[in-house]
């Protein structure tokens, strides 16, 4: 095998595995929907972890970047609905367009990330938190004020071209990117910034540049997550991308352990499925009337619970579930380890 191809081996394997899964499970609508929701949240958590965990900055506006991706990709798809690429079968043409809009959504979010990140990441301290929060609000206000984005009603009628394969391939990509960053000189520089910015700068690390690049990558994937989201939910509106959504992602990252990619994945899966499971459970248990009201209670109470969870975690276990370690670091010694980025 040529050497330049070796880096792509995991990608090929992932394509094969996901294709099989798509064939086996792709026709179960509820499962696909749930898996897609989980997948989008995993992408959000893993990408946010690149900034909040590995680099030690604190962004709390990830939903804003997700919104940028969702609206960009969704609007593009909507406009291209009746356009087909000549010479290709309809399905293929749709998927190519879908891929294109995803990339556009990611790129739009990345550009926003650059614009937001550059002024705030030059500074030490907690400015990024405020600016990203503000960015989320600006996006919300813009969307609510512009007819093209459907104002408060949102966009509907976006072609539902997403699939189990598409979502989980993106999940795979973001995890691969996160792992490869950690395993490279860039990842080490990010950790160095997290540990001691002054020392990193003195050792020749362009701290601002690194922070901005980490933030841009993170924003890109948030945009992709948004793009995916727009293609499997019936409608996107500003209500899907509020501060609450941002905090939900922050909670996933903090709970999983700032800096742990697998931790972010585990936490994202738990925090997505748990409320769903509780809701379903109450609906099953309580009959129609009481069940619905209980299910609504779950939805309402989720948010203060997130807040309390953050406070309690910081007081009791600030490193989260995994700290900076990965799941396989916790396995018994005799199990062979995955290649570790940081020795």
């Amino acid at each position: 095998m040529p050497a330049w191809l070796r880096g792509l081996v995991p990608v090929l394997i992932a394509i094969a595995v996901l294709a099989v899964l798509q064939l086996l499970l792709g026709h179960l609508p509820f499962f696909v929907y749930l898996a897609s929701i989980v997948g989008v949240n995993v992408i959000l958590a893993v990408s946010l972890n690149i900034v909040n965990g590995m680099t030690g900055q604190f962004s709390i506006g990830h939903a804003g970047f997700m919104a940028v991706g969702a609206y960009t990709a969704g609007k593009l798809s909507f406009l291209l609905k009746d356009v087909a690429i000549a010479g290709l079968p309809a399905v293929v043409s749709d998927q190519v367009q879908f891929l294109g809009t995803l990339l556009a959504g990611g790129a739009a979010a990345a550009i926003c990330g650059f614009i937001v990140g550059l002024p705030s990441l030059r500074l030490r301290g907690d400015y990024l938190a405020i600016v990203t929060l503000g960015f989320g609000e600006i996006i919300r206000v813009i969307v609510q004020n512009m007819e093209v984005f459907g104002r408060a009603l949102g966009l509907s009628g976006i072609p539902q071209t997403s699939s189990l394969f598409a979502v989980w391939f993106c999940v795979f990509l973001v995890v691969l990117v996160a792992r490869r960053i950690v395993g490279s000189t860039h990842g080490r520089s990010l950790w160095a910034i997290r540990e001691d910015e002054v020392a990193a700068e003195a050792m020749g690390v362009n701290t601002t540049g690194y922070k901005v690049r980490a933030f841009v990558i993170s924003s890109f994937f948030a945009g992709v997550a948004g793009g995916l989201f727009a293609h499997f939910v019936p409608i996107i509106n500003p209500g899907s991308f509020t501060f609450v959504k941002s905090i939900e992602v922050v909670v996933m990252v903090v709970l999983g352990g700032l800096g742990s990619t697998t931790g972010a994945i585990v936490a994202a899966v738990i925090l997505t499925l748990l409320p769903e499971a509780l809701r379903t459970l109450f609906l099953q248990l309580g009959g129609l009337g009481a069940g619905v009201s209980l299910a609504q209670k779950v939805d309402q109470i989720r948010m203060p619970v997130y807040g309390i969870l953050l406070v309690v975690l910081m007081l009791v276990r600030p490193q989260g579930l995994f700290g900076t370690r990965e799941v396989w670091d916790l396995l018994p010694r005799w199990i062979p380890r995955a290649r570790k980025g940081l020795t």
Partner: protein
Amino acid sequence: MSECLLQASQVGIDFGGLRALRGFDLEVRNGDLKGLIGPNGAGKTTAFNLLTGVYVPTHGEIRMCGERVNGRPPHQINHLGLARTFQNIRLFRVLSALDNVRVACLSEARPLFPRERIAALRRRAGGSSPVASMMDALNNYVDWWRALLLTPGFQEEEQEITRRADELLAVMGLSHRRNEEARNLPYGEQRRLEIARALGTRPRVLLLDEPAAGMNTREKADLMVLIRQLRDQFSLGILVIEHDMKLVMGICEDITVLDHGVTIARGAPEGVRQDPKVIEAYLGDSYLAAHGMPVPPSPSNSTSETPAP
């Protein structure tokens, strides 16, 4: 005579009315081993922070390899060949010893835009040039892609970085700590790891901020030998801030003495030791008292005292 690498002329800085350093002159050439001493609060670390770009001087000029570096960010000054250690050890605590050094070992691959060209652009613009920054950023983005795609060139480079880092750990006698987290190393080894890390950036001038602080007598003796050895092996110019007079007098060929931000003496160790101003400021009553030594009846008598063991 070798070229002057690091040069500070009439450098000063004000902190809200307080002039922490003024009229500071210094030259470090290849092969130099110079010392910077003075009582607490004399401005030694401030001088280091000015030289390395952590603070921007309000007066004077600093040149590194002939280039004016006032106001440049620290990483750019480091790229010109200036590295340092910190008085209050600032290692990357959760990274392993090896990774601490690897962070400093910059990638040496051939970038899209050659580094010399970027440096030349900056020189011509007198510091910051948007075009140069853009090229730098593009270089970096390309670099990220190589890491993400795991290209063969990138892998070779990683191996090369690891090899160099291992070499530096060996030089500093830290090979056995390679995979341990920096925060778990004993104090003396942490100080040595800081030096290894600084060497990773391929410096031409090395600034050591109290490298012997907290070490016992034997470790200090070893360190003296080591510092000399580093200078020769890596052909460096070295500037040491040190409290331990024996160490400074033992290894430095030229000493600058600061007091209250002002240079009060400069020259060979013997001369400095006998300079009445130094004795008054540095070896005066308070210094001796602070170090638990008998205070002589009058400062003039203390000339014969051997400075701090």
